[in-house]
């Protein structure tokens, strides 16, 4: 059943109020809330609308949700070059506490797309997440770094974007529009994540059979979305990611969690 949700509340929280978030209130007395962990880089901007729609859908069914930006991303404090993996993990934990505080819920479901899923997975203990819903999470950091580097190299010669190829130096130390620090690059290159020991739903919209088997073997539920998501597609770099199927799948899973 869908209820008329209250308007979302923009807020600052965390150390020095440096994190920006939007809190979507749920129903009074609810026990479970959802923390929406955004991806990083351009994926964050591409997923913004979908995260908002998902938060509205959850709030509409009575589940509070918190969207937020990590330090150095979105509307949070800090520059893009300051984004750093360990700080992002701290931010997930800080945001989870903020959600507990605002919603009064002790039970938190963590959702994340791409690196947002990776961060929810990596922070599952420190943020005390009770359950995870992961959409195409990045589990092999080295492969992800290689893919972003390849996209950046191709960007230089993208004639749909530039009148003439740009010098390599103009594109150095960046991934698709964002400055990247040495620290984050190194941290991502070393990233290797295993399935968690928590109730988990893995949603896949890109082919990754090995991940599917690993998660299934660890007891996670795995589902495949009918449409592939164009994550690493230079031609659609500034096109919003949309998936009603994803919103429905996550909403359904959260409803199940309420009754689990």
């Amino acid at each position, binding site marked *: 059943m869908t209820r008329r949700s209250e*308007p*979302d*509340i*923009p*807020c*600052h929280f965390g150390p020095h109020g440096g994190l*920006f978030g*939007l809190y979507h209130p749920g129903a009074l007395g609810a026990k479970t809330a959802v923390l929406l962990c955004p991806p990083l880089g*351009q994926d964050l*901007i591409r997923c*913004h*609308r979908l995260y*908002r729609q998902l938060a509205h859908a959850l709030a509409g069914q009575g589940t509070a949700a918190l969207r937020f930006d990590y330090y150095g*991303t*979105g*509307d949070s*404090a800090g*520059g*893009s070059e300051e984004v750093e993996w360990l700080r992002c993990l701290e931010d997930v934990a800080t945001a989870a506490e903020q959600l507990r505080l605002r919603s009064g819920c002790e039970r938190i479901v963590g959702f994340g797309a791409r690196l947002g899923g990776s961060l929810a997975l990596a922070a599952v203990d420190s943020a005390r997440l009770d359950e995870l819903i992961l959409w195409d999470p990045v589990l092999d950091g080295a492969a992800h770094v290689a893919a972003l580097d390849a996209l950046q190299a191709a*960007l230089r010669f993208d004639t*749909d*974007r*530039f*009148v*003439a190829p*740009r010098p390599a130096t*103009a*594109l150095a*130390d*960046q991934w*698709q*529009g*964002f*400055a990247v620090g040495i620290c984050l690059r190194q941290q991502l290159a070393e990233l290797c994540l295993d399935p968690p020991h928590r109730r988990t739903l893995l949603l896949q919209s890109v082919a990754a059979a090995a991940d599917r088997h690993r998660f299934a073997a660890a007891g996670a539920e795995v589902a495949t979305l009918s449409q592939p998501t164009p994550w690493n597609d230079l031609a659609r770099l*500034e096109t*919003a990611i949309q998936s009603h199927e994803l919103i429905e799948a996550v909403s359904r899973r959260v409803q199940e969690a309420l009754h689990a």
Partner: protein
Amino acid sequence: MHEQATRFGRANHLTGITGLPTEDARSTGVIILNAGLVHRVGPFRLHVEMARQLNARGFPTLRFDLSTLGDSSASGESSSREQQVRSDVADAMALLRKQAGCSRFVLIGLCSGAQNAHLVAHSSEAVAGAVFLDGYAYRSTGFKLRHYLPRLLNPARVVRHLARRLRTAPAAAGSGFQVEFPPQARVRDELAVMLDRGLKLYFIYSGGSSWYFNHRRQFGECYGRALATHPGVTVSFNKEVDHTYILVGDRRRLLDNIESWLCTHFPQPAPARDTRQAAATT
């Protein structure tokens, strides 16, 4: 610099972030409008970087989402999109007037943001300036000569072009952001009205607009010499950069240019009482 996330507007439906300088705030507030459908952070976080750089130079800023974009909802009014934009920006100006004591405003917009900036700058007396990133311009004879002549003089390019035309269906000119422009004469007249009111206007064209703008001189070809040489008008064209400033260095140069233009044309700080007293009394 201090940022504050806010819900505001006549239906409390708009979401934005005000950025207030810690000291020596200027009386001119800067309002940054959505670029296309991208939420208020802007393409590749351009608007966040812009707001913070201008805050550091004393300009109060507001980056916000227009009705139904980003995190803003619909106002519930049954009015035209143009009227909604005017009302949303009026709400934004009221907020910045209340929070920072601003008495006049500069609007900054990219692509559709430039069109919305034009719309409001033409009709609102509170607007003192505007920065149009890949805003209106029209293909002139000079544009066509610069565009087609090099191609016609190169037989290999002519052959490639014809082969491409035969292979593919005709595509829309330019990359994916083509929008419909109002009649050229109307835009020229509206710009003249703005300049007569004393507005300062900064037109910045990128290589991403090269399907309709390919030389700084084209501004005069479109709008006439009187407008092009008017002291209130500044025009720049940077052919090598893309429409949304994907490269960090390009963004940095763009922001430095905007900051420099603002400091030149809107130099004065706010009177000491304005900021604090206005905030205290509201």
